């Protein structure tokens, strides 16, 4: 329960932080909320020579809509997302997601940036961000670069973030009218990672057909799974039960879960299907569909 020794730095500005990251390279880790990193260090499952705490840098916690985007600072706390009226009313999928991350105490420290940057397929935001078509802003010594979320998750605990970069912002396109989303998570108990979870965000056309859809799954593969085939299938169709069911089938096919105590491969894949069906249904309802 006691970590091995490391050095700790608390830079007051982003350039300072980036300089430290450049200096120590692979031997440094960013400390944001610490709710994924510190547990690893305490169990000595991970080791690092230097922790670069970005918690003292002002201007990294915010939630604002501007220029057609919902912009969230990388260090924004999960509890802030959960408590945000803007998010609750206009991005219910994100509200759903924040609410089921770990437990309320962890959410007071855990950050959105950390949840994405850790690269853990068990984390909840990745699937939601895939469904929303978000963008990740990575700030490095040479400035900002914008990474589409579909290109962000590379493998187990691997993201497109470079060792000398900090995830400073997430950008979500403001959904058009007649949009709705939902995140449904099956967990063994509060605080657990997902046995499986599904994130669905839809926009309906004036005729009631699906105009745009994002569908992604949590913890059923080494990275979050974007159900591309299911999405393609849904566009242009009316969201009746049979259509949603078929889409969920396709989404489940895209999953490659591993067996563990949460379930066998078969069960998890089936749960991905069940949850995808239910998430799509709820997203459609929230979009003003049936």
């Amino acid at each position, binding site marked *: *329960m006691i970590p091995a020794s490391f050095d700790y730095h608390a830079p007051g500005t982003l350039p300072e932080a980036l300089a430290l990251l450049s200096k120590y390279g692979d031997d440094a880790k960013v400390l944001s909320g610490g709710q994924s990193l510190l547990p690893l260090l305490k169990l000595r499952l991970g080791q690092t020579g230097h922790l670069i705490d970005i918690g003292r840098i002002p201007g990294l916690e915010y939630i604002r809509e501007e220029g057609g985007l919902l912009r969230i600072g990388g260090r924004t706390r999960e509890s802030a997302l959960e408590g945000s009226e803007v998010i609750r009313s206009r991005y219910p999928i994100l509200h759903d997601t924040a609410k089921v991350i770990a437990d309320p105490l962890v959410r007071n420290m855990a950050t959105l940036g950390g949840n994405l940057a850790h690269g853990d397929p068990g984390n909840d935001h990745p699937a939601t961000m895939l469904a929303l078509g978000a963008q990740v802003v990575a700030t490095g010594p040479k400035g900002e670069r914008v990474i589409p979320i579909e290109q962000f998750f590379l493998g187990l605990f691997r993201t497109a973030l470079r060792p000398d970069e900090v995830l400073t912002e997430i950008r979500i396109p403001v959904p058009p009218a007649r949009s709705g989303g939902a995140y449904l998570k099956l967990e*063994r108990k509060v605080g657990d990672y997902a046995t499986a979870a599904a994130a669905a965000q839809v926009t309906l056309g004036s005729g009631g057909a699906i105009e745009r859809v994002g569908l992604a799954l949590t913890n059923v593969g080494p990275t979050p799974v974007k159900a591309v085939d299911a999405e393609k299938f849904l566009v242009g169709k009316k969201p009746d039960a049979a259509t949603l069911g078929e889409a969920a089938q396709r989404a489940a096919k895209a999953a490659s879960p591993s067996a563990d105590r949460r379930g066998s491969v078969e*069960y998890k894949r089936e749960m991905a299907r069940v949850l995808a069906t239910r998430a799509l249904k709820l997203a459609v309802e929230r979009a003003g569909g049936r």
Partner: protein
Amino acid sequence: MQPRTSPEVGGMGHSMKRKEDPRFIRGKGNYVDDIVLPGMLWMDIVRSPFAHAKIKSINTEKALKVPGVLAVITGETLAKYNLHWMPTLMSDTQMVLPTEKVMYQAQEVAAVIATSRYAAADGVDAVEVDYDPLPVVVDPFKALEPNAPILRTDKKDKKDNRIFHWEAGDRAATDKAFAEADVTVKQALYIPRIHVASIETCGCIADFDRVNGKLTVYMTTQAPHAIRTVFALVAGHVGLSEERIRIVSPDIGGGFGGKVPVYPGYVIATAASVVIGKPVKWIEDRMENLQADSFARDYHITAELAARKDGTITALRMKTLADHGYTDAAANPSKFPAGLFSICTGSYDVSKAFVEVDGVYTNKPPGGVAYRCSFRVTEAIHAIERITDVLAQELKMDPAELRMKNFIPKEKFPYKSALGWEYDSGDYEPALRLAMDKIGYAALRKEQAEKRARGELMGIGISSFTEILGAGPSKHFDILGIKMFDSCELRIHPTGKAIARFGTKSQGQGHETTYAQIIAEELGIPASVVQVEEGDTDTAPYGLGTYASRSTPTAGAAGAMAARKIREKAKKIAAYLLEVSEDDLVWEPGKFSVKGAPSRSKTIQEIAFAAYTNHPPGMEAGLEAVNYYDPPNLTFPFGSYICVVDIDRGTGMVKIRRFVAVDDCGNIINPMIVDGQIHGGLTMGMAPALLEEISYDENGNNQAGSFMDYLVPTAVESPSWETFKTVTPCPHHPLGAKGVGESATVGAPPAIVNAVVDALSHLGVKHVDIPITPEKVWRLLKEKGVAE
């Protein structure tokens, strides 16, 4: 039952606020890890990653170079003092530190002593152990096969992995009854390993004072005196004599049976302190606690009932394989290697019964009776309540009706069961009827029928249990030879206040309040001024500790008896003060008065003062008494629980919609505390039913070694429990009380399982093993073609 005393006095029946709470609500509890002694060192333990392996070498060179590390203790060190092995409470033997091989994953291999907690952890990381893995045995059935590796190579001439065979009842008569029965049912059930996981883990501070030759150990223990005697027996040869050993059990953050065993950590810390001459603190972390400390359950049971066509049960047969881990370190009374499992005829009038239990060694940590089980009563009642429902399903009879038909009728108490127990008192039918009324049983059955027609799944499960507590009468009960009485030493001060010391040890059960209430009941001294102490072996009278819900039945009775002795002396003093004969006196709580002249009276306070200032000539001064209570029998609380569940056809998740618990624990000391015990027990009953399990892969790797995978329920999973009572006093206990601490852990799991099976019984499902995970349910739904 109306209390006999006023709320100010706070005798039995009053829900008085707990006297121990002021320190806990302020964060001023005194738990072992809160204690700091001058010069104290820290100990941390190196543990084996392998379940079975030879130790080739232990290299401490790097560890000794870590700043702050003073020493590394290994089995070789302890072997010099013959302390590397020690007896278990079941007269088997266990390793303190190994010299040859390890026998379970997370077994203690070496201990690092350092000047700080953090240095000790670094030291552990730096110890290098070279292992030679050996074949692992985790399946108890495989352990019994002829070609299985023999695990206990330390036992000369041991040719197998068997520990014991135990049986009770009449095999021949039972077999005959089965052969002649109209109907027989048989069900195999596995009750997996679980772990108490009290929020405080185990630990100690061993402090050997070289000058006075005295060892003091602050320890998370439920049985301080037993520990002291074990230490004296084990370490007597190195000069630790019982009068120079003091065990102090301070505030304990939950016990539930997990803090009864003598863990190697305690012994190693003690050895380290004796050798170094400084206090040594050892506090295990949660993963060590879950992976190495005493487990519970791990019983493979085959249960059978024989019955007549009309549902009358005629015989019961049970065969069990008990997986004990690598040594028998359960904390049962010595004559009962399978605990009180023979309570498995339960609440039913079964004339012929036979049970047998075989214990076996495997490469797992030892234990067996932690987790609030009353010595295997959880296993026994789970089996009988399940097989009763299996019978009901077979006969197409309502499970409530089947139970009513077979309950031991009130007139038959005291009831001699076919397996040898004399149940003290019971009135089972009203409890079940009350539960059915409170849950709205008839309406629920109607709702179930309607839902079934629509393809929705809901179930109603009943559990009507009989508990067996209060171990126990000296005729049959001992632990390592020490009889299982318990004790109270009570002293009244001149100003009428009191101090009462007991041989038990609360870990949250509220003894500082309930014992004071017993004294208040018997003497009329307000409970608020009765100081209760437990846990320091230098001052408390000898007792066997608190577990298996034995405190109220044994030490509570001792308190009442000690108070009665004081009342006898008080009567003499009162007669002297009032100048009447004792026969002329009448007692009401708090005072003696003269028959027919009630204004002529002496309060207990006046009498207490007189005991020191004006006692009768020829009588000793003072007002105190000691009682060592040998209970004449065990006690048999009982109850009926009904659980309603709804099942999600898509995910297999089981949701408890409602849970009604009717408990009968005899006369109640503090209703609020009793309810608290029941609530806690219900959550600890639901946990193994739906969430908790310690399992091992074929290499003996623990699959649930942290709270990540050992799923302790939160307030969200735990339902809002509804509790009710009936009261059937215990005829032999001085207060008519029976005890209640574990009833709910016993009664709840089968109620939940029965509800789930009931939800699926129309599809042909007969049984599900616990924990009932969503996947288990989903597989059944899939198999039956009803998954969403």
